[in-house]
């Protein structure tokens, strides 16, 4: 199992794409936000209800008593999550803020039954409770640590999981340029094209190299360049960073980049990765 908390989902189009699983502590923040919203809306309901009744209709107020408040409390306590996740496609306001969503373990949207059940069963994930009232969520934490998808008991009983939705901009494939790159690229001719996996590794390096100090670049690029040269049976005194840049440029563009491209790209996107906050 890989260290990354990602799951593969097979769509009906027979395409596999990946979801990032949300960790317990992101979910705790979302839950805290929802808890705040619940408390706030109950308070607002209480104020509006008392205001409306005292201003307009005292008879109705004395007939209904505090019943509407208790019913609102009940509904918010047990059905808030279930109703939102049914009608907001697996999201509550807290999950929306945190960019989380509930989906089935197959990656499909959840049904109303799953939404309600997984929220009702939070009562047991909250155990043990302090003074029978304040949940500590220790059981849910232990259970979700015991499976690869961070599912608490409510998720296991409904076959759901919580995923992180990320929003990314389309990544430009930036041409690179460095002094001496053209010369290195000319010497690449006899070298066979890169395999896909190697190209991915080199792209990952090139797209991050600007964050590194030159010495660190050397530290990372040197062993890889040595291994590649051994594989090609070549003796070549070449800057390892420059070699990887050349391989990257040849693989993704075929032609040497220009100095203009380099200055443009470093001005436009000084740092990699362009990733959402919290990664």
């Amino acid at each position, binding site marked *: 199992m890989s260290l990354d908390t990602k799951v593969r989902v097979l769509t009906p*189009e027979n395409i596999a*794409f990946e979801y990032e699983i949300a960790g317990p502590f992101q979910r705790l923040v979302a839950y805290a936000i929802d808890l705040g919203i619940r408390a706030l809306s109950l308070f607002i309901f209480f104020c509006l209800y008392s205001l409306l009744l005292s201003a307009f209709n005292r008879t109705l107020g004395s007939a209904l008593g505090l019943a509407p408040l*208790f019913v609102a409390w009940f509904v918010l306590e047990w059905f808030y999550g279930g109703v939102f996740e049914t009608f907001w496609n697996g999201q509550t306001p807290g999950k929306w803020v945190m960019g989380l969503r509930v989906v089935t373990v197959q990656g499909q949207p959840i049904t109303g039954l799953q939404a309600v059940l997984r929220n009702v069963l939070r*009562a*047991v994930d909250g155990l043990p409770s302090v003074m029978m009232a304040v949940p500590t969520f220790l059981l849910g934490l232990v259970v979700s640590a015991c499976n690869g998808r961070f599912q608490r008991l409510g998720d296991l009983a409904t076959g759901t999981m919580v995923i992180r939705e990320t929003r990314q901009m389309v990544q430009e*494939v930036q*041409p690179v340029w460095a002094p001496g790159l053209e010369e290195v690229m000319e010497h690449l001719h006899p070298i066979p094209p890169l395999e896909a996996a190697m190209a991915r590794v080199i792209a990952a390096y090139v*797209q991050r190299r600007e964050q590194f100090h030159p010495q660190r670049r050397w530290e990372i690029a040197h062993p890889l360049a040595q291994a590649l040269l051994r594989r090609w049976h070549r003796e070549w005194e070449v800057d390892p960073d420059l070699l990887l840049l050349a391989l990257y440029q040849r693989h993704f563009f*075929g032609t040497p980049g220009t100095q203009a491209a380099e200055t443009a790209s470093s001005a436009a996107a000084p740092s990699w990765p362009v990733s959402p906050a919290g990664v």
Partner: protein
Amino acid sequence: MNAAQYLQQRRGAWSELEQLCAQMEKSPRRLRASQIVRFSRLYRSVCADLALADAHHLPPSTVGYLHQLVARAHNLLYRSRFFRFRMWLREMLLHVPKRLFRDPYLRVAAAVFYGLFLLSYLVGWTDPSAAQTILGQQMITTMETMYDQPPRGSLFEASTMAGFYIQHNTGIGFQCFAAGLVFGIGGLLIVGVNAVVLGLVFGYMNTTEVAGNFNEFVTAHAPLELTAIVVSAAAGMRLGFAMLITGGKTRAASLRQAGSEALPVMMLAVVLFFLAALVEGYVSRADIPYEAKAAVAIVSALLLAFYLVVIGAPAPQAQNPLSHHPTWEQILHRSDSH
């Protein structure tokens, strides 16, 4: 074709899909038919891009972008199925009683609840001092002062108390249900404790002078409320035992199936708790003769028996397929097809 050229060619389609996604997230109903067709076409083409990412030598950053774009569009295309009222009505009126009729967990929960209730009733009735010791003097005093007057209350009190019972008792029911996940017996423990306390209180109160007031209060809502707590424990046991008795499935699959069976049963308990709360609020403390309150209890018990036994009993096998009486299932399905 190298990656840069491929990206150049596809970028337009990707950003168009992104825009459609944003529009769909905001107001899905405002979309024109042509846009929806366009959306699904673009979605399929991006799926193809992702599948061929290696063949086109796309760098990891682009592949990451495609993963999130496909996931986003996928979630918009395959939406959660909304709450279907008719389906739930059929589930509650037909499948739940059938499930409960042959439900071993309901029998166990009922046996535990009523067994402990009767035992502690006898204890409280024959030995009031034992009840005082177990319940505590404070609770005894509270109970006695609470019932030293006949149960009456204004409309304001009745409504407020009905609301309180909805919030409080149904909450206990939900906790009983969820606690069932703890090896199946968590809910049973809560039910057992409640049965002992209730039995002791009932037994003890019947030895005091305020027995009349006490019985007048508890009669009307007892059948509904006691059934509701037993049903919620039974629904929770179904969940918990599904993890232990898997019937050849994996534990997760067994639990999932039990979940979809147990939730409608729990919803029945919610309905019963609501009805019980209304009766407890408006009938039990109303200024009407005791006979009327007893009649409410009898009618609600008969309705429960009808639901659990008449609807719940398995239909006898029809001898002649041409002339059999319609079962409940067929009646409901027929009304469904109109």
